[in-house]
């Protein structure tokens, strides 16, 4: 198995700032916008963006929720391994809010589909946008596209994109791994 670095920590840093600025461009002071990180891996990106927007760009009272989509997945009973649930922490109402869904890698689009169903159980959002760090284009099973993306890659199906964060792997780096 071989792996190469797709993004190093400096590049990730620059991308995070760009994504934060793009969000501000569309959502101003975030008074009617909430961020929702998808469990399990989208929460690190979501937390980073929240910290950046709060500390560097002085956005006040930014709301961040964590959403688990396990019970909404379309592959329940279709996989060999059972699914492990994570916690959902959304302590605000989503009714009429602009929602930015955040995940690390957009691949088939099925997690996002599940996320969209799950979001509706917290109210009817005014608008839902999608932000991802890595967009694996040409791999989609559903008509889902990101509004904000860090980097687009043309990985083939056997390849795997691995996102490491300081919080989990001691450094920020994105690898593309060849499983053949």
């Amino acid at each position, binding site marked *: 198995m071989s792996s190469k670095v797709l993004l190093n920590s400096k590049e990730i840093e620059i991308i995070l700032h760009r994504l934060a600025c793009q969000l501000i461009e569309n959502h101003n002071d975030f008074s009617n916008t909430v961020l929702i990180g998808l469990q399990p891996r989208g929460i690190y990106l979501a937390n980073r963006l929240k910290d950046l927007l709060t500390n560097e760009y002085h956005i006040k009272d930014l709301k961040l929720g964590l959403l*688990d989509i*396990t*019970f*909404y997945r379309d592959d*329940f*009973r*279709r996989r060999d*391994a*059972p*699914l*492990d*649930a*994570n*916690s*959902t922490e959304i302590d605000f*109402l989503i009714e009429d809010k602009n929602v930015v869904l955040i995940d690390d890698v957009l691949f088939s689009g099925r997690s996002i589909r599940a996320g969209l*169903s799950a979001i*509706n*159980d*917290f*109210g009817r959002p005014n608008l839902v946008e999608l932000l991802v760090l890595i967009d694996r284009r040409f791999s989609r099973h559903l008509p889902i596209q990101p509004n904000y993306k860090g980097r687009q890659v043309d990985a083939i199906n056997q390849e795997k994109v691995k996102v490491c964060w300081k919080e989990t792997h001691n450094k920020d780096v994105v690898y593309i791994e060849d499983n053949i």
Partner: protein
Amino acid sequence: MKQLSVDHLLGIKYLTKNDIDLIFDTADHFKEVINRPIKKVPSLRDITIANLFFENSTRTKLSFELAEKRLSADVINFSASQSSVKKGETLIDTVNNILSMKVDIVVMRHPNVGAGVFLSKHVDAKIINAGDGTHEHPTQALLDSYSIRERLGSVKGKKIVIVGDVLHSRVALSNIFALQLQGAEVKVCGPTTLIPKYISSLGVGVETNLKKALEWCDVANVLRVQHERMDVKYFPSTREYTQLFGINQQILDSLDKKVIIMHPGPINRGVEITSDVADSSNSIILNQVENGVAVRMAVIYLLAQQIKR
């Protein structure tokens, strides 16, 4: 990635400590779900569940039905009082007829001990025992332990006394198995006629003095006197039972600590427990009911996960 070690939920005695932990961890997630604005998830939308109640039930049946519906399963209900059982149909025939309508999971309450085990050997569906005679009532014991864990942080090392009609109670037996598996100490308290002879072989202490039992315990799980299962008189009068084993505020005030009060319902107010105790802040009776839905959702979800497409 974890899954249950059993194919059916027939009784607590077939479960491991890991199974109970997994059920509780899953129930935590469902408890969050049932407190959302929309209290429903689509996980089991292609699963059909039959609730077969060959014996009366109000809250268990409602709780199971609600749990099933909150997981988006299709639900069919069956009560023996309105069925062909009265016309002489056997249990296997009844169930096989229902299964031929493509049912995946059967939740069954039955007056005969071991009915669930029997059924699991003869029909091709997941069986959940919702009470078999005086034997086991596993989901009740799970929700009781879950409620203790929620209130006290953990079950391990806690002292629990089960007060009342232990002889006729499936709740008592399942609770004893569940609590011991999680490392709690269990005693029973009640008239000697209502304490089964074998109880000491389960490692359970017997206390016939209610005050002493309450002084010892952290949690008192109070059981109803099951008059409908009594063929002979087990104690002279209800009044005498209440005087000796009824829990009232006076006896709780005489203790130098707080005891958590539980009751699986239905309550006979003024017999085994007075209204002021049942409605006090020490009572977690209504928490038990809420947790019952979350715990049953977890059990159904985890068993459904094993059903192959």
